[in-house]
């Protein structure tokens, strides 16, 4: 059960991308998402594709993991592609049969959008595949740090995230335990019509909620007794260090942007 969860998304390996500062990776993904929209012809899309392929090869992530990331949105890609073909009526007419007509502009537009989608998903999955959730949290906290000036509870949000991550396996175990206990009392989770199955979740959720609240309270007491009183005056055990390779990656993204601006038509 645990393997299927989001936490299982991280693929441990020792690649350049794995060792990079999570802040650099987060920035990279964020900027890449913006930069993708600069491309508007074959050359610029080609350039983006090359950049993505380079990133993938550096990450040493087996391709099947990336494919798994793409699978759920495959339908969306095909769907938008078809929409463009059907409704964008620009350029040369390529094919016509009754009301059905394909124009060159539509074909190209559909292709571009599909490529854009694919690249976006690939790059964002690279982030989660090469970075542990806790490093992502640390990176976020650091990057959003300046927002503290405007009273954004950045530290609290990061702590909430990390506690949530820490308790996922614990709650999964508990769910399994409650499920077994309820099955022993005659609740049927796996068969019957949908309506019945949804109903059978109630005896699972109620005990889970009750015990989660109890856990939360005990955790709060334990944290308080260990001297937790908010982010002020707190030091951090996990240190992020920005290396030359991180700067280089940022520079390469900068170069990519410049080239895209030059190449776009």
């Amino acid at each position, binding site marked *: 059960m645990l393997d299927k969860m989001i936490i299982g998304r991280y693929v441990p390996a020792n690649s350049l991308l794995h060792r990079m500062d999570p802040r650099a990776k987060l920035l990279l993904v964020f900027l890449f998402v913006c930069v993708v929209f600069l491309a508007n012809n074959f050359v610029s899309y080609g350039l983006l594709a090359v950049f993505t392929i380079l990133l993938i090869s550096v990450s040493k992530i087996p391709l099947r993991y990336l494919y798994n990331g793409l699978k759920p949105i495959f339908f969306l890609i095909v769907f938008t592609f078809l929409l463009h073909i059907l409704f964008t009526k620009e350029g040369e007419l390529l094919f016509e049969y009754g009301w059905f007509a394909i124009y060159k502009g539509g074909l190209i537009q559909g292709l571009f959008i599909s490529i854009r989608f694919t690249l976006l998903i690939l790059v964002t999955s690279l982030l989660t595949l090469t970075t542990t959730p806790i490093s992502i949290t640390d990176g976020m906290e650091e990057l959003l740090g300046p927002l503290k000036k405007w009273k954004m509870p950045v530290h609290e949000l990061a702590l909430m995230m*990390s506690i949530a991550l820490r308790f996922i396996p*614990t709650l999964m175990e508990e769910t399994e335990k409650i499920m077994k206990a309820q099955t022993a009392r005659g609740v049927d989770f796996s068969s019957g019509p949908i309506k019945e199955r949804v109903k059978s979740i109630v005896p699972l959720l109620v005990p889970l909620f009750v015990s989660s609240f109890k856990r939360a309270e*005990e955790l709060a007491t*334990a944290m308080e007794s*260990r001297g937790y*009183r908010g982010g002020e005056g707190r*030091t951090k*055990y996990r240190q992020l260090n920005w290396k030359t390779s991180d700067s280089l990656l940022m520079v390469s993204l900068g170069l990519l942007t410049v080239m895209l601006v030059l190449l776009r038509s």
Partner: protein
Amino acid sequence: MRKKLVSLSNIIFKYEGQSRNALDDVSFDIHQGEWLAIVGHNGSGKSTLAKLLNGLQFANSGTITINDQRLTEESVWDVRRKIGMVFQNPDNQFVGTTVQDDVAFGLENAGVSQQVMVERVHGALNKVKMNAFLNQEPHHLSGGQKQRVAIAGVIALQPDIIILDEATSMLDPRGREEVLETVRELKQENEITVISITHDLEEAAKADRMIVMNQGRLYREGTPQDIFELEEELIALGLDIPFSVKLTKELQKNGVHVVDGHLTEEELVKDLCELHSMM
């Protein structure tokens, strides 16, 4: 007489919305370097006592002094740095995502610098023999291991006192022994005072001193030897006496000359063997 480290005087405490006082005029002292066991039936006020000592609750009246510092809402954060607490449920006190993050949590709160933190985290994990599990996630650890990590988190802050609030009650016998052995070693090495709140009378038997709580009052105070002499009275309070003490009494009743004062099974076994070889 050793130095008084903690002293409670005339503590009265009532939970909101309850008619009976959870603690009713409780006074006692705790001395430096001792192992004090607080026993009592459910609802006797023993866990409330622990909460008061750590400033998680404040008494309605009476004073608590720790190391010549009065425990008030202002001094509570200083006091918490001197008193480490290990709770009952191993899962619900594990804050970090990995073992080392959890041990570091208290240090982070105290604002210790990163270099010192790394040193102390490793030191503390060495002491509880969990240094091989630095990057392990909590759900891969046994209950006993989690409690040892919790102890590491406490000693990393170099406290004077450790409170074990039924810290072994959710563990299997092996985990329990692991945890108690760890605390015993730490106490020897670092002169730490241990306050152990427990149901387990075998555990209490190894303490230097015992306090029996009943219905929010301090019922009896003394060495385990003295306390277990009470026998019938303890049973009337819903407590039991250790097996070895029971067996000794039964043997004496049946005319076997065993001397009193065996609090642990090992001692009794040794004595019985000696007796046997003399016959």
